[in-house]
């Protein structure tokens, strides 16, 4: 039940308890209680809107920054990752397998803004040994939603 609710809300966070209850074949009170529990357990962290920011005025600029890091003896990557996550400019932080350690998604008002943030803040952290910044040029899909214009429903009535 819980995983079904998470799946539904991941698809559309605006489903009402009643709508979810209908799809799951239970009553709205049960769904409400489950959602509250999921929030309390910290499985559901929040609800946000998917925006095609390229259509907005003053659209922010984003970059993926690859960080190489020297892990601490006891704490591994936790300490530096948490420190990086504290910055409001940082949208997400992931520990990666492969060629580098942390993938940091950074947003800013301009390329310059981000460049300055990487140079002054991220690159100067003691355990960070190198950075590589890749700017996002265009967005095609965001959180499972295709952003480019699609063709719509082209089914015909044939019978």
């Amino acid at each position, binding site marked *: 039940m819980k995983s079904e609710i998470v799946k539904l809300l991941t698809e559309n966070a605006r489903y009402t308890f009643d709508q979810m209850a*209908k*799809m*799951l074949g239970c009553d709205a009170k049960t769904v409400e209680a489950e959602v509250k529990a999921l929030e309390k357990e910290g499985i559901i962290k929040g609800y946000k809107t998917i925006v095609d920011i390229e259509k907005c005025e003053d659209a922010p600029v984003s970059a993926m920054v690859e960080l190489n890091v020297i892990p601490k003896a006891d704490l591994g990557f936790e300490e530096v990752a948490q420190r990086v996550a504290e910055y409001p400019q940082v949208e997400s932080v992931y520990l990666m397998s492969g060629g580098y350690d942390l993938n940091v998604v950074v947003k800013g008002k301009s390329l310059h803004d981000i460049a300055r943030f990487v140079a002054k803040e991220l690159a100067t952290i003691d355990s960070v040994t190198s950075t590589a910044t890749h700017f996002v040029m265009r967005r095609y899909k965001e959180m499972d939603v295709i952003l480019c214009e699609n063709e719509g*429903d082209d*089914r015909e*009535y044939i*019978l």
Partner: protein
Amino acid sequence: MIDYSKVFNSTVEEMKPSGIRRFFDIAATMEGVISLGVGEPDFQTPWHIRKAGITSLERGKTKYTSNSGLMPLREEISRYVERKYGVKYNPENEILISVGGSEAIDGVIRAVTQSGDEIIIPQPSYVCYEPMTALAGGTPVIIETKAQDDFKLTPEALKAAITPKTKALILPYPCNPTGAIMEKEDLEKIAQVLKDTNIVVISDEIYAELTFGKRHVSFASIEGMWDRTVTINGFSKTFSMTGWRLGYACGPKEIIKNVTKIHQYAIMCAPTTAQYAAIEALKNGDEAVENMKKEYNRRRKLMVSSFNEIGLTCREPKGAFYTFPSIAVSGMGSDEFCEKLLMEEKVALVPGTAFGESGEGFIRASYCYSTEHIIEAVERTGRFLKKLGK
């Protein structure tokens, strides 16, 4: 000048256009219409299946196949129907690949029907059986299935419809538009009625994989029924492959041989690209089908509860992808209801009467649409009923 009044076969001239069409021709001219009308999946054909079609083109597989269809595909179908429904067919001569399930249905009807033969058709059901029978020179004998029987075919009704002229029975389950299914014990009762007759059963099982809660039982798997049954199935609904136009008929070699003759002269063979894609669908498509089914099931539950909530009594459809709510509460006939709903709230639905007179008092709503779309359409329908004071 040619006198067209003397040109046409009168059976064709008297054929009415499908009742599904009428409203959609109107709807197509209006802005902001939201439809629950179409009878095909909204999902794309799963990518790995499309890829198999593309690969076949890249490799230059652009020729005709044999009349019966690619042997590897018939072999896959043979394995598939055995593992799914426990029925065995020899790919050599008991399986025919057709252009959609429809062509196979038409072929079987034509292969068995002579002038004056009666073909029994339970209704409400898909719109093609009656005109196909008429075109073949047969006489459609309609059995009106009832809501109180969950729109199942009952042995009593079947017995009453059989005459010495009865040639075949169409068994359209899981049923478009009612969503009814026939369970094993229902089919066994039908088998009891048929066992000492010479009646061929054309079992249209195109929605076999879209049943909810109960697994589909193939009529050919019922004891003693294999040798009188032709099972029609296809790729359109299960694998979301409507545009590929690919179906098949499985049956005893005596029947398939004769259907293949018609297919050979009228069609030659089913599209080659589609046949290659279909091999991939049968081999590796189960997971994709399961995922689509989960989504259909969610929409199905949403739609049934929502219709009941706004006052349209809606039974739980156990198969296909339609709900068939009663509109008795509106006090209107199906046609009037659909027309007013379209004009006032811009919701396009199909009147039950499009599927036979016994569909009067019902509407067909397809759930081949996103949940958001369904929610909006039902909301508008609810508003329409409220305005009526219902």
